[in-house]
């Protein structure tokens, strides 16, 4: 009697791992080994010769070069540009998708139709397509150009700030195009709110405005976090991101190579991790403050 559950457990374990085996083999070969090797490369001078790939340990030299050479500086600059971009784009995308989600959550006709339109960009927005749209000027609303908003930004802000801010207006539609998944996330969260809470609040004399801030927004709290993390990762790994273009460019450049490129990739990952951690902390403290008040 006492042995039976034990055997069942063991069988469960074995069968479970047999289901997991394909993934495990893949993980070891195509993910874990490359990650480990990438760390080794980042501390090595990697040269490609006719006979194969030679690597020599050089310590932190690659990392030192990122912070002391022209190639490294141009990478770091694109990372800081990206960080500034995030500061503006993430709030825009988050606020915009909440607004759209709230609008779509009303009792409206043609809801599926509108939802279909707002989700469409997720389907077609590949790097080259967005590239073409920006290059041909189809990514902006004509009003932006006509009203001279870009010129205004260039005169008001310092050049370092003006560039990213102007690009936001020039690519406004494309930025909004990155909200498809987030809109659906927020709609799902909205639909979980019990309608009776709204009715109770209305009886107590709360208007729609108060209901929104006191009921809707607090219920979206967790989803805001999920959406922000998703947005940052999505933008960070987008194929046209200038920061990740450096990694590929340096791979085949004569003076840098695989070793330096690997170091650049790890620095980029660390920067991304810091950005993610900061955003999560910022959101947490902001939310806590609200509760205290």
């Amino acid at each position, binding site marked *: 009697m006492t042995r039976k559950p034990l055997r069942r457990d063991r069988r*469960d*374990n074995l069968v*479970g*791992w047999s*289901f*997991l085996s394909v*993934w495990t*083999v*893949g*993980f070891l070969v*195509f993910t874990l*080994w*490359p*990650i480990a*090797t990438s760390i080794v*490369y980042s501390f090595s001078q990697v040269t490609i010769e006719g006979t194969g*790939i030679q690597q020599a340990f050089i310590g932190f030299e690659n990392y030192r070069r990122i912070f002391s050479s022209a190639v490294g500086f141009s990478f770091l600059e694109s990372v800081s540009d990206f960080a500034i971009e995030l500061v503006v784009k993430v709030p825009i995308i988050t606020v915009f998708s909440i607004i759209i989600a709230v*609008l*779509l959550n*009303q009792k409206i006709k043609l809801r*599926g139709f*509108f939802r279909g*339109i*707002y989700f*469409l960009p*997720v*389907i*077609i927005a*590949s*790097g*080259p*397509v967005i590239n*073409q*749209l920006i*290059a*041909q000027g*189809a990514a902006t*609303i004509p009003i932006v150009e006509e009203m001279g908003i870009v010129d205004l930004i260039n005169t008001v802000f310092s050049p370092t700030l003006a560039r990213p801010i102007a690009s936001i207006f020039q690519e406004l539609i*494309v930025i*909004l195009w990155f909200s498809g998944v987030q809109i*659906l*996330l927020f*709609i*799902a*969260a909205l639909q979980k709110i019990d309608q009776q809470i709204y009715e109770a609040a209305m009886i107590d004399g709360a208007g*729609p405005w108060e*209901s929104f801030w006191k009921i809707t927004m607090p219920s979206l709290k967790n*989803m805001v976090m999920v959406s922000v993390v998703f947005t940052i*990762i999505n933008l960070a*790994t987008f*194929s046209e991101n200038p920061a*990740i273009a450096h*990694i590929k460019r340096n791979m085949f450049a004569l003076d840098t190579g*695989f070793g330096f490129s*690997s170091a650049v*990739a*790890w620095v*980029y*990952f660390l920067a*991304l991790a810091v950005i993610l951690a900061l955003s999560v902390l910022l959101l947490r403290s902001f939310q806590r403050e609200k509760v205290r008040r």
Partner: protein
Amino acid sequence: MKNSRLQRLKKKLLGRQGTDGILGRFLLYSLLVIIGFVYLYPLIKMLAYSVKDLEDLVNPVVEWIPTKIYVENYLTSWKVLAYGKTLLFSLLVTLLPALLQTVTTSITGYALAKFRTKFKVVVFGLILMTYLLPQQVYMIPKYVLFFRMGILESAWSIILPATFGQGLSSAIFILIFYQFFRLQPVQLDESAEIDGANPYQIFLKIGVPLAAPAFITGFLFSFVWYWNETYISSLFLGQNLYTLQLKLLNFQSQFNLTQGLTQSMTNEAIRYAATILIILPVLVTYLVMQKWFVEGIDRTGVTGE
């Protein structure tokens, strides 16, 4: 008397709650339509410009409606993209990895949802890590690995990782399947077991059929993401293999190659036509399967808990 009439009018216009009233409704629909238009604006512009000939392009009066439909742009970009041949190759490195990735991630998700395996927490942690760690970090050793395996610059370099559940966004699909299989009633499995079915039969006969929505959604997203991916594929496929997206990325040089010109002779109309040709397969898929894309996110429980 007059007062109550006024009140009724007010109620009709402003409504009792939120967007009940005529004014609220009007505002709501106009916002939805305006934003919808802004969203579609690039597509509409693309479509309008792609049928313009040179005269229409330089004519400032002709903005939205071309004076005539000029199909030549499409014919040119069709030739530049070598559309038929490139489409076939694109489908090979899109549909096949998507299909194989769906199969593997479903098996993996099933294992995590149904069995008390040892080190399950570790596996979960590793799966989450593969989501958070950008591909860029470990793509260089992968490049070397594929080179040594002799599959660099071939479709295998895309297909093989997908087969082993290490493809594009595999982690997300594993979590989708995990969520979905976890919600399936255990009683079904148990009664099948009593009838003498082994775990693999239970998976194939009960788990898979009941998870059809997750499979469809997973496959569709997989397909679309593989279709749109260029960063990794351009590295692994090399200089000689092109998907449609990669041809668009290098459209200018492709154009010069096929037209035998060294001067820049493309115009925006030709480029827009090419862009439309490239989004066409996914656009059609979306129009036909829209429900599965949008509701799939809800239904598969990605957004839950």
